């Protein structure tokens, strides 16, 4: 199980062999994505059809973020729901009625599948159809699965966005060429990108998701899409099936990634490269200035990524190429060769990539390696700190604005802070 396996049986030139492991995984399930998705899509409500464990996960992962009544909840299945599926469906209808009565402002309702609902084969697609018909036209009902038996952490967003693709309107065959940014970004980052794209001269830009599900953009063969997140394999496939075209690029982390990402879009829209460079130059300069401060602290320091969000490969590329950090192992829950193609070619040759997880064996490697910094989930951070190893909570990389030029410094700071804290403490 420990032996490195080349993917697809052939050694490709783009990176080192990948260590594939099975065992205990210390990762969240896809339900966790609801925590940021419900903030992003403000007319949507996420109803998990699951167990008390699901509800407990959401509140634990979110901390207690209940300052107002949140737009997510769990329909907790009980003993009698397991007796027969007919009853479970009836119960679900009752819960949805109750919910919509209480929250009349909801325009889109996501029924989110969980491990227990998948195992008892509760058909949420059918339920969404039934409930959608019942509550049309006021409420649209959509379904996807965030279950742990199928999805890891950010794959929940992938499943959610993929569920939206089939209901995006079709654009006219002769529609003007348009750009679709895919992946939920904090509003401030999304606005920055919109301004930059406008400066570059790209018009017709839309996002998936938009801030309201009701505003889903049209899509067709004239749509070119640019992934803002590296974990959107199924969404990409669904977009391909609708005729949209993928723009291959680095992911927009750091100066190099953001520049490459924007250049790739500009090329598709036939923007004069000289104009592109003229637009990007001041942003690049500003970002490089911000990075210079952090480079002093991070250069030469070693870093180990435990698998968490699938952001690991692009972040490792950024840390290694722009901040001079030394990569030891870069673990990711799932390695999407296609979407990461450009990223993988830029990783240094010696790096150990790993996919999947056997957490105990991986922790053995962390202890052997003694990296200066280990990126890991919340369940592992304090135990590693207790052993004298500095850690960075991976979840912060998902919840904080880290994309683009103006967040490059902040992104580097997230890695520098644990090291700096270690230096300043005398206790």
């Amino acid at each position, binding site marked *: 199980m420990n032996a490195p396996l080349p993917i697809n049986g052939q050694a490709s030139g783009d990176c080192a062999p990948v260590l594939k492991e099975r065992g*205990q*995984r210390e990762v969240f*399930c896809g339900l966790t994505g609801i925590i940021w998705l419900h903030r992003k899509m403000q007319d949507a409500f996420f109803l998990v059809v699951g167990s*008390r464990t699901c509800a407990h996960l959401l509140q634990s992962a979110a901390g207690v973020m209940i300052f107002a009544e949140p737009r997510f909840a769990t*329909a907790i299945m009980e003993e009698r729901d397991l007796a027969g599926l007919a009853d479970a469906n009836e119960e679900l209808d009752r819960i949805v009625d109750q919910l919509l009565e209480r929250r009349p402002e909801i325009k889109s309702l996501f029924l989110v599948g969980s491990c*227990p609902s998948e195992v008892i084969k509760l058909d949420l697609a059918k339920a969404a159809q039934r409930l959608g018909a019942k509550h049309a036209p006021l409420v649209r009902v959509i379904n996807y699965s965030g279950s742990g038996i*199928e999805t890891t952490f950010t794959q929940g967003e992938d499943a959610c966005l993929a569920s939206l693709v089939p209901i995006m309107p079709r654009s006219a065959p002769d529609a003007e060429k348009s750009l679709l940014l895919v992946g939920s970004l904090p509003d401030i980052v999304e606005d920055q990108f919109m301004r930059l794209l406008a400066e570059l001269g790209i018009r017709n830009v839309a996002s998936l998701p938009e801030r309201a599900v009701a505003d889903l953009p049209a899509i067709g063969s004239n749509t070119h899409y640019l992934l803002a997140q590296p974990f959107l394999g199924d969404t990409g496939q669904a977009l391909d099936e609708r005729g949209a075209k993928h723009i291959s690029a680095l992911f927009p982390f750091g100066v190099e990634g953001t520049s490459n990402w924007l250049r790739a879009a500009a090329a598709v829209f036939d923007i004069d490269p000289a104009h592109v460079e003229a637009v990007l130059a001041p942003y690049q300069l500003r970002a490089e200035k911000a990075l210079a401060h952090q480079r002093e602290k991070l250069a030469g320091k070693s870093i180990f990524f435990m698998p968490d969000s699938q952001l690991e490969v692009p972040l490792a590329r950024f840390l290694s190429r722009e901040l001079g950090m030394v990569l030891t192992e870069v673990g990711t829950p799932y390695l999407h060769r296609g979407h990461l193609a450009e990223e993988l070619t830029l990783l240094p040759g010696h790096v150990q990539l790993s996919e999947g997880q056997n957490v105990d064996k991986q922790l053995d490697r962390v202890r052997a390696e003694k990296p200066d910094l280990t990126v890991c989930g919340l*369940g592992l951070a304090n135990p590693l700190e*207790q052993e004298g190893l500095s850690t960075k909570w991976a979840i912060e990389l998902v919840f904080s604005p880290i994309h683009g030029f103006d967040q490059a410094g902040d992104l580097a700071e997230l890695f520098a802070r644990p090291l700096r804290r270690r230096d300043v403490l005398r206790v």
Partner: protein
Amino acid sequence: MQLAVWTYEGPPHVGAMRVATAMDGIHYLLHAPQGDTYADLLFTMIERRGKRPPVTYTTFQARDLGKDTSELFQDAARDSIERFKPDAMLVGASCTAELIQDDPAGLIEKMGLPIPIVPLELPSYQRKESWGASETFYQIVRNLVDKNIRPEPKEGLNGKRRPLVNLLGPTALGFRHRDDVVEITRLLHAMGINVNVTAPLGANMADIQRLGAADFNIVLYPETGEMAADFLKREFGQPKVTTVPIGVNATQDFVREVAALADIDPSPMLAEGQSRMGWWSRSVDSNYLTGKRVFIFGDASHAVAAARVAHEEMGFKVCGLGCYNREYARDIRAAAKLYDVEPLITDDHLAVEKAIEEAHPELVLGTQMERHIAKRCGIGCSVISSPVHVQDFPARYSPHMGFEGANVLFDEWVHPLVMGLEEHLLTMFRDDFEFHDGAGASHLGPGHSAAKAAKTETHSPTANDVQKSADAAPAANPTDGLIMWSADADKELKKIPFFVRGKARRNTETFAAEQGLETIELATLYEAKAHYAR
């Protein structure tokens, strides 16, 4: 199905984790899909534990279903025994694994493993976290205790030995369990009693084996310890002490109960001066605490104990009492009768929020959820019960049990209130520029009270938009045709200190409505004040 935005208790396997994590050398093999590992962070982040919980999750995926989940389970069992070398292993299923019916207990039995195994049946779709902890601890005791160990004779060659007790119930992630155990152990030592075993917190397999050596058991936390204590009573005839020693009076009752079972004189421990709490409460500064309305919600044992302290030792008025764990609802009902309030038995925090708003308390004693509710309503709050967050695991020593615990309760409950001396100053200087409404109480830091006071008003059900507009435009009340404030009355209302103004407004409006008045005149304000005088 039950619609839940937030839950007071996790699933029962989290309760089992609280027991396993509290103990040494006990590993928990949990048949579960990926994602259930989230529960680790409760211990490593909220409680700041420096070790991972001793739990191995089998981590099955969709593609394993119907094929080799049982093999996965057996592999995980072998691997975790080899890696962690536990003295004993708990095996069980989380909610999803329960549905695939792999029968962990049966699978394990077939393997003939070299260590004792405690199989757990925790029905996820019926039961919750506290029950899961209680059942797990009970199963550990039932499976591992050495039935041949009995108490030594009371009189030996070296004279009379000290009485020996077990402390049962403290777990990982328990509210103040760490410090309560220290405090009660000290108290017992001072009484001349030794602790045989504290469990589950800090206990190992050898400790569990020798539980029978104690003369009797003390159940510190009935929610997690009572099932095991009942078993030990049946099996060994060990009596159990069930008084929860929270507050001076309950601690004294506890001392009497323990002393009676141990056959020792309780009087030294009942003497004045064991706790400062009584004097702190009788001293004149505390006059202002009299009749403060307090709403109490938590697990039943903590809520009942807090109500007694609030009523007898602080001089508060209990205006609401409830618990989220139905298993102990009877205790809450009995206590609610004492204080003449409706018992609130619910695990729906929205129902709790509604009850709090309706009760108009001046202080809320609750869990982390009531802290959030109280914050929203602009009411002071102190935490008395699980579930709690990271700030409720303080670095300092701060038990809630025993005589020192009573001191801690006084401090923690008084802190969110405006202090007596300060209340007088605020009244005297209310027109002073530094004591304007927005300045707030000094101990709460800047920017606290103005927003809070406004919020209190807007959140009360009898209050509505009237109040916001009344503040903006005195005596004008465009949105509510029922009750108007005259300019004089409104001006007078503003002279009332901000922290009681909301109540004064509500009382006056309720009074006016009862009297069928359309306008609140200056006199109405004072008539209402006289009407509600206490």
